[in-house]
């Protein structure tokens, strides 16, 4: 705990993440204005007492939209990373159990294949099949994070499987499932959580990117990426409109990256002694 408090990047990440989560939760109960309310005659206003961060091209309150957008980003992150985490871990551990078998080979080569495509590109590819929309975007982002988790889980699980206590457990007659549950999963969990945190920031960036391209979150639901895209048209007239969603995206990505880095350092057994 003390180590955590004295780890600067972890703390910065934690504070920023906390801030974003708080804002997102707060938006469930309260926003300064209705984020969907258009006051077209008040469009592209600079920040003021009434509109803290100004208004967008339809006269919507940017601060309120960013708050709801945070909720959107977090939700996308949680579900997409959740899909990748759960499916990836299952596949990875399964492959590790059958190490060297044909099944393992096929599975891992398949994952390598998906891994070969750049993340956002494969998400776009998946979205062209599924059609645009936030649910499909989440699925797409989830799918492309599966191989990352699966490879990691396989590698880590292989290491665990080779340890003596597994052999001991086997000799003691523990079932496969209970070995998995009691020995393998807890031992790879730390690694997976670190990866999840890093993956989270990628998922937020991917959602922003997809929404920027118009195939992610659809209006009227606010999304940071879409806000950025919409604002781009008005850069010459109201540059600040683009700055705020940009800052939000950068901040969220930074927050989860720092958090992940910090977690990695804290959870790494090799670093514990230092």
């Amino acid at each position, binding site marked *: 705990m003390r180590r955590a408090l004295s780890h600067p990047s972890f703390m910065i990440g934690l504070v920023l993440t906390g801030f974003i989560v708080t804002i997102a939760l707060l938006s469930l109960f309260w926003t300064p204005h209705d984020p969907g309310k*258009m006051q077209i005659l008040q469009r592209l206003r600079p920040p003021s007492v009434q509109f803290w961060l100004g208004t967008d091209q339809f*006269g919507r309150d940017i601060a309120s939209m960013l708050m709801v957008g945070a909720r959107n980003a977090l939700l996308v992150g949680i579900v997409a990373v959740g899909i990748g985490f759960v499916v990836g871990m299952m596949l990875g551990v399964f492959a590790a159990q059958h190490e060297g078998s044909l099944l393992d080979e096929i599975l891992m080569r398949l994952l390598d294949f998906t891994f070969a495509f750049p993340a956002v590109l494969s998400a776009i590819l998946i979205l062209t099949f599924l059609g645009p929309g936030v649910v499909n975007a989440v699925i797409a982002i989830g799918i492309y994070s599966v191989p990352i988790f699966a490879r990691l889980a396989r590698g880590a699980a292989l290491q665990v499987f080779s340890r003596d206590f597994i052999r001991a457990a086997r000799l003691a007659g523990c079932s496969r499932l209970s070995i998995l549950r009691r020995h393998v999963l807890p031992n790879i969990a730390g690694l997976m959580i670190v990866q999840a945190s890093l993956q989270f920031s990628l998922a937020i960036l991917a959602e922003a990117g997809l929404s920027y391209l*118009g195939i992610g979150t659809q209006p009227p639901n606010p999304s940071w990426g879409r806000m950025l895209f919409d604002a781009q*048209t008005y*850069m010459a007239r109201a540059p600040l409109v683009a700055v705020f969603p940009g800052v939000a995206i950068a901040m969220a990505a930074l927050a989860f990256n720092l958090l992940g880095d910090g977690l990695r350092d804290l959870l790494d057994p090799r670093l514990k002694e230092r």
Partner: protein
Amino acid sequence: MMKIGPETPVPASSGRLRRHARLGTACSTILAAFLCSNGLATAQNRDSVTVCQTLEPTILDPTASAAAAIREVTYANIFEGLVGFDRNSKLVPRLAESWQASPDGMKYTFKLRAGAAFHDGTPVTSADVKFSFDRAGAPDSKNPQKWIFEPIGAVAAPAPDTVEITLKTYAADFLEGLAWGDAIILSEKSVAKAATEPVGTGPYRFVRWNRGDRLVLERNDAWWGGKASIKSATFRFIADPQAQVSAMLSGDCDAFTNIGAPEAVDQLKKDGRLVVTIGSTEGETILAMNNAKAPLSDIRVRKAIAMAVDRKLVNEGAISGFGTPIGSHFSPNHPAYIDLTGEVKFDTKAAKALLAEAGLANGFKVSLRLPPPAYARRGGEIIAAMLAEIGITAEIEPVEWPQWLERVFRNKDFDLTVISHVEPMDLNIYARDGYYFGYSSPELKAAVAATKTARSEAERKAAFEAAQRQIARDQVNAFLFMLPKITVAKKGLTGMWPSWPMPANPLAELKWE
């Protein structure tokens, strides 16, 4: 995008301070070069012009596809008809020098222009006219405006320079129809290649087409109308509104036919090198509704939707207020226009009451398919928010043009869509069976038929007025505004059409001053 000037080398021997000073002057030279470069560029290229537009044609044959982009490139440039429209939508002679209609309006005699020839050198004769009109009116014709040719009974070519057209049914708009880009004269010899390597009769001949980028034309020195002022003309296609603005600011385009970023008008106006003209198009922009599909088949629901949409705010938010509000499907530029914008007043409460009356007090869900242009995407988002106020959830789905044509236009698989109908005088689409609105009204059909059979201008005007009223009364769609034409041209380039009676950019009228 910033244009970066050429780097001015700084002598390495100069001291730090001097280097800074030099850098300063270098910068200002670069800046000056940047500011002047476009002026210089135009001075060098008086013999050529680059006209940019949003959409690229899919093919170049207007008799085979309805796409406006084809006409924007070819009309009065590559292809010509017997007659044409000028910039004030006045009927003017083109390949026909003169014409005469019989007193009963059933027979037209055209005298062809001496000296008119195709780009391959063959003269335009009455046989070409007969070929073109017979082809366009044939049962298997792909011509998008078959109504033009439907009244034709027979086309005769008594002499090489004389064409006689006998009508089987009287049509008040027959001559007008012949001015459309769909009634161009093609040669039997080259018609097969019209889609990709068109051979026309106009002041410019086709040179090459780099798909996805540009299309190059060259002056036809043998044109019957004399030599055009500019020798070489290039059409460039830039779909993204921001890129359009950048292309104008950087000087890559000499003119933009209709810039897609109305929000950039102020910025463009401030630039002393450019001239911005706001004109009008024939683009009735509407919130189209699927009249054949419940609950939109209920006129009360359609009316409620129209009432919930504040067209003034949509105009303001989607295209910065440059549109002209309309209350029916008719252009304010036409003499028969009547203002029906007051027919349905923006009134959320009344709209809700109407919905309740229709048994939909709790609202309902509809899809709202939006094609790429800003008026549709942005306008649609505003409309969705307005519909939400009366409890209607409009699920926005952005679609690309091919998808829109396939799903909405052809398969009628939609509830709502925002679209601009850019053809002139297209009221008759409401009388077409199987058109994507899913609307059918005997009264309207009668009114549209009356516009055709009218024997006098007054009679025709009355029929148009009746048709406008009928469409508004039936609230077929929610009528929003006419799209503006925002023309941007470099100072010194004159002759761009400020308004579009039809989508066309006649290059022969352009001139550098």
